[in-house]
């Protein structure tokens, strides 16, 4: 009954959006010629997850009966009016427990101009709201079809600070160089990060303070070397994301800075039936002149290894081991626990995941996965409010159906 009510509520809330998608999907149906004429494309996706957890909550009250708290729906449009120009925008509606309430948002809207392009190299510039080039998966983190599981490895692709990590408004230079079987891809940019998520203060300042964050000038860059058409990929990403805290009324905090400086090393090897992926990240946080919060700096450490095997063309299985240490100088969280009287296990998370994917058609797939997690470091505070006390050792089972066009 609750599920039905839930579904109806979502349907009503998004019926305009559904209608828009249906219209677009209908008009695109078999219209190859039309697409050629105006050189415009429309794509989209809809995903719904079922999540059940043993103790703690992830994307909704999943330890009780609210198992359908995660759903998302996106539509993008792109056009290439000339071969030098590329324009694109994507709208997204996302429900994720208490983290995301289903507000329509703009993921990206950008113009890309190709400065130079030849068989051996290319150089271009992008302007607008651009997705962050961070690791292998950041830019496509919302598209179930491109993720290596229902959840991305949470140690690096935190869902609790998704907006901050996802996109920002700015400018980006990008290039490609090809020689024999080697290719180099790079992006470098400057931007103002997006800092209006309600979870951000909780995640970074452990409390909802009277003031708020404002974006400050930030820098991002990534370089990838790929061999033999992407058989082997090796990448390095770096970002310097700066936020200013503007104090509110009667605020114990003062005007100061919180800076997030992640460095991600990425590695992937692809075979026809088998792929292996690993990423290692150092995530540095700096707190400066915030008043009640003393100046400090600590570095978190994250890494995962994943192996995916394509049993049949439409069946895929994977295993992943994912690790997060909030402070690499206090891996077991004991020093933090001694000072704050918060549990030590809130400072780490070790997640062993097994999953399976079935592709029913190129546009429809279903995934199932099981997580055995030790630690609660990547759990959202908003989804795990008192009186719930997060439990150290917990399990999660999830199903996800996803459709795209």
């Amino acid at each position, binding site marked *: 009954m609750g599920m039905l009510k839930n579904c109806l509520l979502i349907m009503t809330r998004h019926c305009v959006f559904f209608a828009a998608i249906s219209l677009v999907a209908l008009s695109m149906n078999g219209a190859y010629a039309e697409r050629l004429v105006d050189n415009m494309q429309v794509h989209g996706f809809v995903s719904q997850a079922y999540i059940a957890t043993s103790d703690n909550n992830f994307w909704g009250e999943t330890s009780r009966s609210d198992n359908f708290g995660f759903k998302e729906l996106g539509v993008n449009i792109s056009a290439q009016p000339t071969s030098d120009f590329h324009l694109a925008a994507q709208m997204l509606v996302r429900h994720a427990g208490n983290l995301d309430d289903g507000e329509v948002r703009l993921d990206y809207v950008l113009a890309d101009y190709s400065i130079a392009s030849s068989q051996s190299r290319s150089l271009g510039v992008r302007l607008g709201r651009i997705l962050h080039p961070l690791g292998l998966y950041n830019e496509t983190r919302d598209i179930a079809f491109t993720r290596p599981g229902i959840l991305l490895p949470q140690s690096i692709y935190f869902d609790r600070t998704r907006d901050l990590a996802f996109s920002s408004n700015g400018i980006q230079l990008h290039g490609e160089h090809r020689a024999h079987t080697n290719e180099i891809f790079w992006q470098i940019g400057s931007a103002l990060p997006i800092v209006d998520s309600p979870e951000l203060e909780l995640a970074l300042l452990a409390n909802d303070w009277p003031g708020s964050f404002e974006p400050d000038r930030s820098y991002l860059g990534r370089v990838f070397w790929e061999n033999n058409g992407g058989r082997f990929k090796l990448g390095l990403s770096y970002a310097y994301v700066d936020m200013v805290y503007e104090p509110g009324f009667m605020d114990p905090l003062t005007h100061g800075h919180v800076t997030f400086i992640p460095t991600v090393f990425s590695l992937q*090897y692809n075979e026809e039936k088998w792929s292996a992926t690993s990423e290692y990240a150092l995530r540095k946080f700096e707190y400066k002149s915030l008043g009640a919060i003393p100046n400090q700096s600590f570095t978190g450490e994250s890494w995962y290894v994943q192996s995916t095997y394509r049993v049949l063309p439409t069946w895929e299985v994977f295993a992943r081991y994912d690790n997060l240490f909030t402070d690499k100088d206090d891996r077991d969280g004991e020093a933090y626990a001694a000072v704050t009287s918060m549990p030590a296990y809130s400072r780490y998370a070790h997640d062993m995941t097994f999953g399976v994917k079935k592709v029913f058609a190129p546009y429809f797939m279903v995934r199932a996965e099981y997580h055995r997690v030790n630690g609660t470091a990547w759990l959202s505070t908003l989804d795990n409010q008192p009186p719930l006390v997060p439990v150290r050792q917990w399990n999660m089972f999830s199903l996800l159906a996803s459709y795209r066009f």
Partner: protein
Amino acid sequence: MVSSKRDGYTSKAIAVDRRNARSFLSSGLNGRIMFVVVFLFLIFVDIDNSYAGKSSVVVIANNMVAEKSLTLGAVRSIFGMRLRSWADGKPVRVFVFNDHHPLHIEFSKKILGVFPHQLRWSWDRLVFSGTGQAPIYVKNEEQMLAYVENTPGAIGYITRSQGHGHAKELPVNND
């Protein structure tokens, strides 16, 4: 056909996966270290072994396209939807069959030396990150030929024995 050499690596990899899944559960840290070591070893195996080779598939292009041949790097970038214009600045139009079409699988492996799942991942990445567009899908070889013949800047692939009508064949240099 899949080479027996590759099969060897694949089954080795699965065996390694299974073994490590077990040791994760039983021996904790040792298992994890072992997994990392094996992972690092496997990525250095077979890196430079291209599967590009002789095949019954040929790359075809619209007659107006000035290029007489393409390098492997260029053909990979074109079908990877990353090279958007020909040398004369005219836009490239890419036509493909769907992911599970036998000719697409052969084209990907033999001409591009890339697996269909990698192409799919790159296309999805471009389409959903706003950095590129998807290729245009055709249903059969007649449709492929008709589109390539009639669309300026078009490129596609077809069985060699089909002939290429008014389209032209573009040889790929494996240098």
